């Protein structure tokens, strides 16, 4: 049993792990599977030698998009709209990257990113996209976007299991002193101030996408320190406020408050605030951002290469064409010829496949990525019987996990199942060690971690479990440690390399749908321009 305890202790901490093993809570085997996260196949390719590039007589495409996440799909949609011939290559069997979704008997569920915040009116491309999917239905008298009621997260939105009870909202309120509450209020007014700030052209310092943000030097300077340092500097001492901020850092970035850039942590709060500092509405879908992924995929046209790895991107001597070597699901190799390439994958992959890119030195240094584990639980709806009403987002204060969201929250249809999506960000150790640990875990082990974690708030949850599917994300999201935003803001990473244009959230330093959509659209518009097509930008810069 000691290995089980070590395992639980590694992920849940000693008290929870000891509790589990002392009680000897024998876990029934749980149905479900470990969903392939590409890590094993991807790592196998890492150390192979550079492959020869065969000749090809295939058609010359306008663009090959590498990567079928939100950035790649956004680029493809924009390029298709401009009438260009596009092919997209994606290593996974489904589209979406970290915004992909799945489905089982319990209905659809997210595997990663699962909501967007109501866009500000100035974020015109996002507003248009959300109009297309029926979320934005007009304008309010004050000029803000009007949202379809059924698309906004339903009440109760968030709750926190704290000191043995569920509290509404995420701030640990029970037992808070007057000083605690005063600090919370001071922090909120701090955030309101940052959200209300405008530069000479009326731009905000914190907005998603960051392509629309002002570049105030004092705001960017926040990227030089950690959030921990910032809190101390500003005289925040409340342990409760610190917990809230730490949770925000873990939830959005997979980092602890000690490691997160103060700029990023404040971005989390301020970018989710409206013009008056009020919180923006949250737009979730049962399948998470899979809804937007499907919409973007349907907007684009052209060949889709799924389960296919791009092994090498080479350039013709005369610059007339770019060749993309693709290994398909069967292992067969193909060469795609294109005039331009949009590289919508992390830089650490790009360096390995694009001829000459690795030699570009410090300009294109790859940022580090965090690891996450997402578990989709399918419970029998008997679970709901003895429970207070579940919120959309449910967090356990004493837990190192991020809690769970309920995909059923937005639905009215009756179902015998309750799907819950449990998120865990591996924040604590250095990313490489964590990743190795992550890949060593198996399905049964992770089910044990998830159930042990949830038993803190739902002691009988095991009785209701029908199945649990687990996805380990080795490289989930860019980690905004101090300095990453500063480098991103210089924009070096966005500059094309020969015929390759870059589109990825790491170019913003925060992994949000809005950033991926922005960079995909931006890179596509660069290509449209480079190919000499007429361009009316949709970015609203």
């Amino acid at each position, binding site marked *: 049993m000691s290995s089980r305890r070590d395992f639980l202790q590694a992920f849940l901490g000693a008290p929870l792990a000891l509790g589990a093993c002392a009680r000897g809570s024998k876990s029934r085997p749980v149905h479900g599977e470990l969903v392939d996260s590409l890590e094993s196949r991807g790592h196998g390719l890492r150390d192979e030698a550079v492959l020869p590039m065969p000749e090809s007589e295939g058609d010359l495409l306008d663009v090959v998009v590498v990567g079928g996440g939100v950035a790649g799909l956004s680029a493809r949609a924009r390029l298709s709209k401009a009438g260009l011939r596009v092919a997209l290559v994606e290593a996974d069997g489904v589209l979406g990257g970290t915004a992909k979704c799945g489905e089982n008997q319990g209905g659809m569920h997210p595997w990663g990113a699962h909501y967007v915040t109501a866009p500000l009116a100035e974020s015109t491309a996002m507003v248009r996209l959300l109009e297309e999917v029926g979320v934005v239905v007009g304008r309010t008298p004050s000029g803000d976007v009007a949202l379809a009621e059924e698309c*906004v*997260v339903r*009440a*109760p*939105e968030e709750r926190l299991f704290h000191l043995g009870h569920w509290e509404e909202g995420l701030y640990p309120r029970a037992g808070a002193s007057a000083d605690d509450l005063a600090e919370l209020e001071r922090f909120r007014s701090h955030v309101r101030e940052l959200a209300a700030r405008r530069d000479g052209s009326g731009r905000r310092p914190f907005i998603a996408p960051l392509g629309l943000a002002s570049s105030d030097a004092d705001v960017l300077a926040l990227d030089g320190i950690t959030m921990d340092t910032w809190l101390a500097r500003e005289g925040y001492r409340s342990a409760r406020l610190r917990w809230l901020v730490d949770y925000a850092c873990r939830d959005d970035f997979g980092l602890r408050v000690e490691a997160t850039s103060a700029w990023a942590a404040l971005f989390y709060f301020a970018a989710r605030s409206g013009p008056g500092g009020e919180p923006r509405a949250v737009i979730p879908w049962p399948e998470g951002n899979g809804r937007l992924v499907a919409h973007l995929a349907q907007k684009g046209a052209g060949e889709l290469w799924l389960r296919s790895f791009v092994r090498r991107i080479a350039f013709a001597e005369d610059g007339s064409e770019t060749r993309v070597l693709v290994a398909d699901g069967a292992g067969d190799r193909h060469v795609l010829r294109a005039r331009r390439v949009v590289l919508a994958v992390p830089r650490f992959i790009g360096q390995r496949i694009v001829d000459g890119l690795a030699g570009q030195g410090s300009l294109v240094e790859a940022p580090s990525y965090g690891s996450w584990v997402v578990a989709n639980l399918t419970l029998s*709806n008997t679970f709901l019987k003895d429970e207070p*009403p579940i919120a959309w987002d449910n967090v356990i204060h004493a837990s190192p996990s991020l809690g769970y969201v309920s995909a059923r929250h937005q639905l009215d*249809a*009756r179902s015998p199942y309750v799907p819950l999506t449990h998120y865990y960000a591996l924040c604590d150790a250095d990313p490489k060690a964590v990743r190795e640990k992550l890949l060593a875990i198996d399905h049964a082990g992770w089910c044990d971690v998830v159930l042990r974690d949830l038993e803190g708030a739902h002691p009988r949850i095991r009785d209701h479990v029908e199945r649990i599917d687990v996805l380990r994300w080795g490289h989930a999201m860019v980690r905004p440690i101090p300095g990453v935003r500063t480098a991103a803001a210089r924009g070096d990473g966005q500059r094309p390399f020969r015929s390759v244009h870059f589109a990825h959230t790491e170019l913003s330093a925060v992994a949000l749908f809005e950033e991926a959509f922005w960079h995909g659209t931006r890179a596509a518009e660069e290509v449209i321009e480079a190919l000499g097509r007429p361009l009316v930008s949709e970015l609203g810069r």
Partner: protein
Amino acid sequence: MNDGSFARDSEASAATTVTGARPSLLFLNVFLLATCGLVYELLAGTLASYVLGDSVTQFSLVIGLYLSAMGVGAWFSRHLDEPLAARFVDVELGVALFGGLSAPMLFLATSHVRLFPVLLYGIVAVVGILVGLELPLLMRILEGRVQFRDLVSRIFTFDYLGSLAASLLFPLLCVPKLGLVRTAVVFGLLNASVALWCSYLLADAIPPRRLQGLRLRAFAVLALLVGVLAGADAIVKHGEEQVYADEIVYAQSTPYQRLVVTRNRAGFQLFLNGNLQFSSADEYRYHEALVHPAYALRPGAKRVLVLGGGDGLAMREVLKNPSLEAATLVDIDPAMTNLPHAYPPLAQLNGHAFDDPRVTVVHDDAMAWLSESATRPRFDLAIVDFPDPNQFALGKLYTTRFYNLLRGALTPGAPVVVQASSPLFSREAYWCIVRTLEAAGFFARPYQAHVPSFGPWGYVLASTAPFETPTHLPSWLEGKLRFLDDPTLGALFVIPRDLGPMEVAVNRLDNQALVRYYENAWHRWQ
């Protein structure tokens, strides 16, 4: 061997020392024990009827099982040997423990449909067996100390008198004043006290080295029961102590709610999750006021939609319209629309509404069903009769989103009526429903009717087209109503000052403001 000789010795000495006083005190104990025993039986029968429904069957089963278990106990008593007095006290402590904890344990198990009957009959059997041991043991203890003919006569006299006391105390004092959980614990405490007392009364018949252990056990049982008594509130809250004033004639737990029908001299009543839905004595006031003001706006309505109202009583009123061609009723709970079958007096009361060929019954979430309206013919009148918005699952059926969906199911200008809770007890909630209908683009007119079971009750008449307050009922209703006539119809729309408008938020899916208003209001009144 020592034990046996000791027992004989003490018995011999007891026989010489027990005088008339002690046996008579023991007969008092017989009286008390009989009271306790019957109270446990009545508790079990009552709880069985509450949770499993069908009180005739449940009481019959519980009494039969209990009496036969007593027979088992009596049979088994012959196998118990000396020291009988000590065994008697232990049996009493067992009765106190199981009887005293019976209702608390059963309450905690009310939500476990499969566990509950097992626990219930198990407890009834155990308590029955232990109670069955009591009298045979006591008779053997007193054998030789009292003349046999006196012994039999007195024991049974006090036993039967004790039962009488229980049968009077239980309905008159225990259930109304204490509730089921506390009744069980209080009688458990009484029972354990009697056991402790007996350990003194019979001290000379109990080996001294056993005495201490017995009394320790007695104090432990007493302490445990006192602890449970202190936690009784929490147990009651966890379970569902619905002390219905009247006899329960039907009860069923469904995935959505708990249905209970009670009956008294005035008629019968339906409760959902403990909340009164109607009383057959005055429901005609509620349902006439619900349906006919809308008909007064559209006397020739041909297609009518009823959302909620699974008891069929609103449908009874809807069907009075001779030009009606089709009426659709949407209720999430099949058990609810099946209730007239399961409890025929309801079918009689709703005029067998669901057997009318014009009626279609749909079992679905009304919101989910309305979101698919585009494919259906539209309705020219809608009755919205959901339970009060006391939880989020109901609160969503009162949101702007819901009313927008409803509008999509209606012909332009179709009248809609919404039951809107009490404008007196939950005035903010009432006006929140009015404002929400307005925010969803309806013209809304509040009105209220007096329903004795509820007090003043609120409704909202609404339409997407502007309309005048109705003053005349359709002519086809002539002679068909007990409550409404034209002057009364007009009076419904007069809102007294203390029920008047308030500043309230609009109820939306993302704020569920109504549920919060409603909760706050009822907290104030309770």
